[in-house]
C-alpha cells in the first residue's frame, strides 16, 4: 500500500503525475456540488419528483467526498484519450444541466411552468389555512382529488371514484372542440423524473357560460361528475359523434397531439361534466407527483 505516504506528495513531478486524478476529482466535485445545489433548490421539481431530493443530496455529497479524495490524495496516471473523453463528457453534461436549470428559472411563458396570476383568479388561500377536502357547492358535497388520481382509478376500472369531485387542471382549447362545446383538462404526472412524465387529459363539457371565458393555458378548479365520453343517442347535440367505438375514436382524434417532454393520453371512456368552474392561480408545482387511490386524496 503506497498511497497517502507524505513522501509521495513531495516527490518531484508528483503534482503533474497526479494531475489526471485531480481532474477526475474536480469533475466529481463539480457534479456532486451541482447535485447538492439542485437538491436544495426550489426548482428541483422541474427535473425530478421532489421525494427524491434527499437521495440527490446524499449522492451529491458522496460524490464530493470521493472527488475530494482524488483531488487531495491522487495517484499517478497518464492522460489517455478515454480518460479525457469522460472528463469532457461530464463537463459538457454539467454545462447542459446548468443551461436547463437557467431555463427553468427564467421560463418565460405562462404555461405549465409559470402560471401567471389571472386578474379574476380566486386568491390564494392563507398559507396556514387547511384545504377543505369536501367542499360544498349548491348543496352538493364534492371530494377534492387530483386529475391523475381520477384517471388512474378509471384506468383500473375502479367503480369507487367519488360521484362528485373537484379537481385542478390546466385548460386546453381548440376551435374544433369549441364547436362541440368541449375542452380538455390536463395535468402532467411525474413518477420519477421528467423523462417518465405523462400528460393526462379529460374532455370536459357543461357549464357553457362558465367555460366560455376561459382560455387555453388558464388554470381552473372544476367541480363536476363523470359521464360517458360519448353520451348515449338522444342525450347529445346534433352532429355529435356516435355513442360507439367509432364515435369515441372520432372524438379522440380531435384532441391535439401531445408535445414533448410528456406523452399525452386522453381518457377514452369518460368526460368531466362541469357543474361549477372557478379560475384559479396555478399551483406552485404544476406537475403531479403523488397519487392516492383512496381518501384523503393528494389533490
Amino acid at each position, binding site marked *: 500500500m503506497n*498511497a497517502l505516504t507524505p513522501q509521495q506528495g513531495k516527490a518531484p513531478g508528483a503534482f503533474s503525475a497526479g494531475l489526471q486524478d485531480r481532474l477526475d476529482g474536480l469533475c*466529481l466535485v463539480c*457534479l456532486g456540488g451541482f447535485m447538492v445545489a439542485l437538491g436544495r433548490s426550489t426548482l428541483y421539481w422541474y427535473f425530478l419528483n421532489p421525494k427524491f431530493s434527499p437521495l440527490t443530496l446524499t449522492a451529491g455529497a458522496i460524490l464530493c467526498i470521493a*472527488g475530494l479524495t482524488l483531488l487531495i490524495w491522487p*495517484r499517478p496516471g497518464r492522460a489517455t484519450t478515454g480518460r479525457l473523453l469522460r472528463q469532457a463528457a*461530464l463537463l459538457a453534461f454539467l454545462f447542459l444541466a446548468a443551461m436547463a436549470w437557467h431555463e427553468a428559472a427564467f421560463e418565460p411563458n405562462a404555461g405549465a411552468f409559470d402560471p401567471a396570476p389571472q386578474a379574476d383568479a380566486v386568491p390564494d388561500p392563507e398559507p396556514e389555512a387547511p384545504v377543505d377536502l369536501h367542499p360544498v357547492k349548491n348543496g352538493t358535497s364534492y371530494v377534492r382529488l387530483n386529475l391523475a388520481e381520477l384517471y388512474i382509478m378509471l384506468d383500473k376500472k375502479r367503480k369507487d371514484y367519488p360521484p362528485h369531485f373537484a379537481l385542478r387542471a390546466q385548460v386546453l382549447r381548440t376551435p374544433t372542440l369549441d364547436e362541440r362545446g368541449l375542452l380538455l383538462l390536463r395535468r402532467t404526472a411525474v413518477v420519477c423524473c*421528467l423523462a417518465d412524465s*405523462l400528460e393526462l387529459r379529460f374532455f370536459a363539457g357543461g357549464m357553457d357560460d362558465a367555460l366560455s371565458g376561459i382560455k387555453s393555458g388558464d388554470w381552473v378548479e372544476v367541480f363536476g361528475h363523470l359521464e360517458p365520453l360519448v353520451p348515449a343517442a338522444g342525450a347529445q347535440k346534433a352532429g355529435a359523434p356516435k355513442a360507439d367505438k367509432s364515435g369515441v375514436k372520432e372524438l379522440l382524434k380531435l384532441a391535439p397531439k401531445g408535445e*414533448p*417532454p410528456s406523452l399525452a393520453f386522453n381518457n377514452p371512456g369518460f368526460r368531466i361534466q362541469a357543474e361549477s368552474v372557478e379560475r384559479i392561480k396555478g399551483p406552485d408545482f404544476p406537475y403531479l407527483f403523488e397519487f392516492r387511490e383512496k381518501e384523503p386524496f393528494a389533490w
Partner: protein
Amino acid sequence: MDQSAFAIFSAIVTSIVLEAAPFLLLGSLLSALLAVYVGDGALARLARRGLGAQIGLGLVAGLMLPTCECGVVPVTRRLLRKGVPPGAAISFMLAAPVVNPVCLAATWVAFQGDWRMVAWRAALVMIPAAAVAWVLGSVKGSDLLRPTLDMARGMTDDAEHDSGCGCGCGHAHEDHVRPKPLQGLLDVLRLTGREFLDMALFLIIGALAAGLFKTYMPQEWLGLVSTNLWLAVPAMMLLAVLISICSEADAFVAASLSMFPRPALLAFLALGPMLDLKLLPAFLTVFKRRPALVVILVPALAVFALTISLGLAGVLQ
C-alpha cells in the same frame, strides 16, 4: 433545434442523468467495496458449482443485492474481475434490475395488485437472462471483458497492474490483504469515484440519445400501432430501449399505456431493464464484441418471441 426544443432536450437529459446518478454511484460503491474488502477466493468459489447452480444463484441474487440497471454494469464488471463465473454474473446483471423487491413491488402497485403481470415480468426477464448466461457460461471472465476502461484510467503502468492483479482496487499489493481502516476507506472512495466516472460517460451518451428521442418522437405512432399485436410488441420494445426509463418507474408508464395489449406492455417491462440507451454503450465498451452482441441480441429476440407467443396464446387477455 429551436430554443424551446433545446430547453426540453436539456431538461430531459439532466433529469435522466440525475435520476440515475445515485444508483450508478451505489453500484460503483458496491463495486469498490468488493474490490477492496472481498478476497478473490471468496467469490471465485462459485465457479466450483455447476452452471445451472451458478445461473440460478445469479437470477435471484437481486433479491439480496437490489440494484437497478443504472448501477448493475459496474457491479457485474467487478464480479467478473473477482472471479465470479460468467453464469452467475451475467444472469445477475440482466435479472437483478427486475428481480428485486423494489421493482417487483412497483410493478404490483402500478398494475393494481395484478400478480400475473408481476410474475410474467419476472419470468420474461429470467428466461432471457438464463439463456444469455448459459451461452456465455463457459467463457472465461477475462475473455468477456475489454481492457478499455482500465486504459481510460491511464493506470496500466501502475504497480498494481505490474503485480499482475486484475482487481483494479487502486492499491498495490502482493496478495489481497485487508487494508487498514483509513487506507481502506480512501481506497474505496477513490475507486468509487473512478468507477463512477467510467460508467457516467455511457450514462450521459444514453441520456443524450433518449433526450433527442423524447423531444422529437412523433406521439401519433403509439396510437397507430397499438391495436396490432405484431406491431405493438416491437413498437413497445423499441420504446423501452429509446426512452430508457429506470426499472423502478417503468411499470407506471406501462400501466398508463393501457391501449396496448398486455403482452406488448410486458415486452416493454421486460426488455427496458435489460437493454436501453444507457446500457447499450456500456455493454459495447465493457464487454468484447461477441459477448456484447449476445448480451444485446438474445434478450431482445427472446422477449419478442415470448411476448408474441403469449399474445397469440391469448394469455393475459
